[in-house]
């Protein structure tokens, strides 16, 4: 039997506000337990929630960016369930009337055409607190700092057909919310979490198979691994003539498997009803238009511009626009260097490698864009060779790490890195080397072209890598041709 996977994702985007969705308590990450949980977050009697206007603006920003309908009238509901990290016994969410309606996101896998993934809706809700099960014997510790943190839950249609597509969608969502500056995108701190609904069906069948839900994945790689595991698990059951049970599962990264949570037999009966503590949200056209005017350039638009304006390939433009900070850095380097393609090569190559090695994000790049721009300009105008430039890059990087802003030209000057482009000087060195290596000259004359590399190496050694390589090649061929 040929099986087809059907996947839908629910992505929880933590909105980057200063205060909570319904209270004036802080949302900063990493505070001491329960020092950011005020009476509203604790669900103490007599408190009332008041909606944060920034949360509304961010949700509308997101909605417009995915081409969605913004609902002029949306309602907050209570989703009822019992868990110790949910003090009120209900989560304030949106059910029948979410703030953002149908939209879409375009994903692209390497070497494949772009694909449009439909988004069903996006609604606002409050996060729950955190339960710590390990630290206390027979007890669970509860930290309610996260309770009331604003979330935008984005629900996709079951449009995704592979784990790779699901990961691409999650990545694209991550890139989008960072460009929109509505989420810090910090996966390790849980700023974006994802639930995956996974089912399989015989290829060609339109009816959906029974699905399971993998909860709370906060890494692109783990999402892909978890879904692949789950697809395999379900196919294995079906191939053996079994039946997939509807289930909620957790991914265990250490064992690379999903496991049943077995806790929610009674769930999915949340008895939603409108929260009487909150009035419906009315949005007028003028407000929506004002948000639309403030929309930044979206990743897809930026990618298209890099291709048309800078002549970059689809792949390069996609790479550089994935992270808004890297894109901003690249544009500054390109402007300073005056050569957008060479700038792209350096940012994608040496710079990205250095950032990775140092485990730094682009916004924390220690090397000023102008310094890298100057370095590239000096390659362009022939002052330094590409090889020398790589060594110089390392020097500039180290200086940046030490908190200095080095003067690129001064270093080239003081360290004598200037490329030797003086024909006479290079020719003299070549003559010496040719005279000192008669055996290799003989080999070259019998047609061994490879020996040229040996001579180039010798010249570079003699000039400490500073000879202009193009000139060395030309002059060497001439010199060798003169040998009879």
């Amino acid at each position, binding site marked *: 039997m040929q099986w087809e996977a059907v996947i839908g994702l629910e992505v929880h985007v933590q909105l980057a506000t*200063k205060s909570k969705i319904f209270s004036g308590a802080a949302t900063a990450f990493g505070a001491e337990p329960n020092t950011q949980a005020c009476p*509203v977050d604790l669900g103490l009697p007599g408190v009332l929630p008041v909606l*944060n*206007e920034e949360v509304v603006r961010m949700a509308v920003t997101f909605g417009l960016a995915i081409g969605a309908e913004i609902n002029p009238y949306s309602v907050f509901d209570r989703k009822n369930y019992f868990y110790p990290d949910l003090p009120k016994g209900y989560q304030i969410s949106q059910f029948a009337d979410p703030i953002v309606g149908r939209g879409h996101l375009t994903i692209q896998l390497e070497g494949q055409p772009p694909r449009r993934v439909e988004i069903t809706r996006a609604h606002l809700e409050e996060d729950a607190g955190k339960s710590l099960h390990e630290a206390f014997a027979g007890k669970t510790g*509860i930290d309610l700092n996260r309770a009331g943190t604003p979330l935008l839950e984005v629900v996709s249609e079951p449009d995704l057909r592979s784990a790779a597509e699901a990961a691409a969608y999650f990545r694209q969502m991550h890139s989008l919310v960072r460009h929109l500056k509505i989420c810090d995108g910090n996966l390790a701190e849980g700023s974006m979490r994802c639930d995956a609904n996974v089912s399989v069906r015989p290829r060609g069948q339109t009816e959906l198979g029974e699905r399971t839900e993998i909860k709370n994945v906060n890494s692109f790689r783990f999402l892909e691994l978890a879904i692949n595991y789950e697809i395999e698990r379900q196919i294995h059951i079906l191939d053996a003539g079994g039946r997939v049970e509807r289930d909620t599962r957790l991914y265990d990264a250490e064992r690379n498997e999903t496991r049943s949570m077995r806790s929610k037999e009674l769930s999915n*009966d949340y008895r939603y009803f409108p929260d009487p503590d909150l009035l419906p949200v009315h949005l007028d056209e003028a407000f929506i238009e004002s948000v639309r005017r403030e929309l930044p350039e979206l990743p897809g638009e930026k990618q298209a511009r890099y291709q048309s304006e800078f002549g970059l390939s689809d792949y390069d433009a996609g790479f550089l626009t994935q992270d808004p900070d890297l894109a901003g850095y690249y544009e500054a380097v390109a402007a300073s260097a005056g050569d957008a393609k060479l700038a792209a090569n350096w940012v994608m190559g040496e710079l990205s490698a250095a950032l990775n090695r140092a485990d730094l994000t682009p916004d924390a790049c220690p090397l000023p864009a102008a310094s890298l721009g100057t370095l590239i300009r000096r390659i362009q105008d022939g002052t330094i060779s590409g090889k020398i430039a790589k060594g110089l890059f390392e020097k500039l990087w180290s200086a940046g790490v030490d908190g200095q802003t080095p003067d690129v030209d001064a270093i080239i000057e003081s360290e004598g890195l200037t490329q030797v482009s003086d024909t006479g000087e290079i020719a003299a060195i070549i003559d010496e080397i040719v005279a000192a290596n008669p055996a290799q000259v003989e080999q070259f004359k019998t047609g061994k072209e490879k020996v040229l590399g040996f001579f180039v190496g010798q010249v570079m050694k003699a000039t400490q890598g500073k000879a202009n390589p193009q000139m060395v090649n030309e002059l060497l061929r001439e010199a060798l041709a003169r040998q009879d």
Partner: protein
Amino acid sequence: MSDIDIRHLTALAQLKLSEVEAEAVAGDLARIIDMVDQMQAMDTEGVRPLAHPLDTAARLRPDEVTEIVDRDLYQAGAPETEDGLYLVPRVVE
């Protein structure tokens, strides 16, 4: 109208009722549902569901941190705390 699963409802509400209590509550609920059935007979075609009895829009507040959290005060009423955490009976095996 008597197909009320009273055990399912008490489980959802986390209530422990005796047989006698459960029977009484089921009777009350049946009468409430009868009333709802009468309301369902109304023609509500084209009427937007009422989300709130007050016919006005939500007032929003600016995104500012205004709450100073006095953890000791808020935890004074909690049955058990440790290291700043609220402690509850263990909820997972």
